[in-house]
């Protein structure tokens, strides 16, 4: 029982970040038809900014939680500024151009990898524990910090789901993702909506970055690991599907956790990729993919 609860808690924690990360990927693909590889760099920028800013702010005498409350918005803003630049000077010209945006995306990854390495250095950074304490239940122990991450991530995912279903912005985003030409014909300003969708996606990546920073090993390459997992989640969930991304995020995290526990973490990675193949063989459009 203890082991089962422990594994469930671990899967939830990993899954929460996968969900946040992949929601952004799937949203951009849905609205702009762009496979956005730069998502990982936006995520890394937010995490690295927190890793750099927090110790500096804490050194000024603020307690870790207060310092984090200052550093986290700085991280989000840094990531959003980067995203605005990426959109304005890049993706704006390659909307719904899957091949063009794919090449641009790969190029931007290479450039930004180099920039992040230059700016933040290659070494790993550890963000001090922001929320101390552990919670024990059924013999399993999780840090309070992890618990907060899960709650925040699930709240954000629920918020996005509700926003897409029940607000004007959400309906507009969905309309554009289903048929952008028809949406434009009824007066929806596609350019503005696409930019809004891109910013929301980047915000999700940035939030995932600032949330994971105090619990992980932060380095300029942190985005790459999550990008691969994020794509697996999006593909299994169904490209463009928000509920699919949530479901697949939890599914992949569970497979990974159980695989690492019962097999070996190397085999867990193989198991995850094997799973993608299996899912695509049975459901080529993913769990909740359209068509």
């Amino acid at each position, binding site marked *: 029982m203890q082991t089962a609860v422990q594994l469930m808690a671990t899967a939830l924690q990993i899954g929460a970040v996968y969900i946040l990360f992949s929601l952004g990927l799937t949203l951009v693909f849905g609205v702009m038809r762009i496979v956005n590889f730069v998502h990982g760099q936006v995520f890394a920028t937010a995490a690295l900014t927190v890793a750099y800013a927090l110790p500096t702010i804490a050194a000024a005498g603020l307690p870790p939680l207060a310092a984090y409350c200052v550093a986290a918005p700085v991280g989000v803003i840094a990531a959003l500024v980067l995203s605005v630049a990426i959109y304005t000077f890049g993706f704006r010209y390659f909307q719904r151009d899957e091949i063009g945006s794919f090449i641009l995306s790969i190029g931007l990854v290479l450039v930004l990898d180099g920039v992040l*390495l230059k700016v933040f250095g*290659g070494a*790993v950074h*550890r963000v001090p524990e922001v929320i101390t304490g552990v919670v024990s239940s059924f013999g399993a122990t999780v840090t309070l910090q992890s618990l907060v991450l899960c709650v925040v991530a699930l709240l954000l995912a629920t918020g996005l789901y509700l926003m897409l279903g029940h607000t004007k912005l959400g309906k507009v985003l969905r309309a554009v993702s289903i048929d952008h030409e028809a949406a434009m014909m009824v007066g929806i300003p596609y350019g503005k909506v696409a930019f809004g969708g891109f910013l929301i996606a980047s915000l999700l990546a940035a939030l995932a970055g600032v949330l994971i920073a105090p619990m*992980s*090993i932060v380095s300029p390459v942190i985005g790459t690991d999550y990008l691969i997992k994020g794509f697996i989640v999006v593909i299994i969930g169904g490209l463009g599907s928000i509920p699919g991304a949530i479901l697949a995020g939890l599914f992949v995290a569970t497979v*990974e956790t159980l695989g690492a*526990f019962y097999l070996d973490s190397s085999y867990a990675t193989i198991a995850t990729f094997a799973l993608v193949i299996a899912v695509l063989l049975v459901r080529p459009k993913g769990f909740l993919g359209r068509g």
Partner: protein
Amino acid sequence: MKAPTTLTIGVVAVMSASACAVDPAAAQDVIKLGLSVPLSGSAANWGKGSEFMCQKAAEEINQAGGIKASGKTYNFECITYDNKYNAAEGTKVAQTLINRDAVKFIGGALGTAPTKALQAIAERQDVLLFTVSWGKSLKGPEHPMTFTQQNTPYEILPPLIGYVVKQHSQAKTVAMLNPNDATGQETEPVAKATYEKNGIKVFASDYYERGTTEFQAIAARIASFKPEIIDVGSTPPADAGAIFKALDLMGWKGVKVNETGTGADTLKETGGDAAEGVYMGSGVVFDGDTVSAYQRKLNDEARKLLGEDLNTIQIGFYDAVYALKTAMETANSVEAKKVAETLPDITFPTFYGGKVGFFGKETYGNVQQMRLPILVTQVQKGKLVQVHRIDP
């Protein structure tokens, strides 16, 4: 496109002539030392420190008059590239160093996989290779141009594991974890055999992928075996700290070993209080009376740059430069093959103090392993303490 004018052609011709007029001897007076090290990821600080130590040794030698061989005076220059601790990047670095930069001496390569990639190209072009990598397969009579500049599992693990087992005689079981690459795969059998030789039962021996950032599931699995010792083998300290922290959270309390552990700082950075008590095989202590003023000065400079003390990996890059200088002057040649033939017979000044040479005929079938002190260290009250030393 406009055709070039006579003036343009003239300017280009003059510039080309000026370039050719540079004294070729001046260009030849520099001996480039190529470094293939990780400058990004969890082992980045090892790479940065290695570059720093190579440059320090080169600076000292250059300022002291350089290397005198075959009637000329040469200076050293260290050229570093990021191998990202993997074979693919290691191959790119090897191509760049040997084919583009025309390097004939590798001052150090870090990581068994990238070193193997480098070795494959270096051997074909008679390039002399120094490495701190742990893989035994890098050495042997079939690799006469390769030399190891730090202790490797065959030197470190018997005294390290022997000491740990002796100190914790109640411990009878171990679970091991290593990175899933050439370094981990070549370290694991040596560690496993050493534990078994010391009467310790190996409950599990797992691998994980480098670049992993989430260690809870891995820790849950290792802890489930309820071993008395957990040895994270050749895991870099940043990852090791995160693993020990996750183990601590799960309530596992036992003997902790990190064979490639190089210092308390990085381990504490990711492991917090869980770093306490960890035994390491690659750390160096810079406190106490036995440390010279010079060693302390260099370490202070390194601390400013790296945020942590120097370790045996980085010191290896310093020693290799002095070994090369001595061998070049002894051979009276800067030809890589002649230098390689001379290296097994020389002694040279080491950062650890005194002079050392090479050994390894019994273990590797060839004399190509630097004879260096073996230091067993432990994190005690947040500081690195040397608990055992062997001078082979």
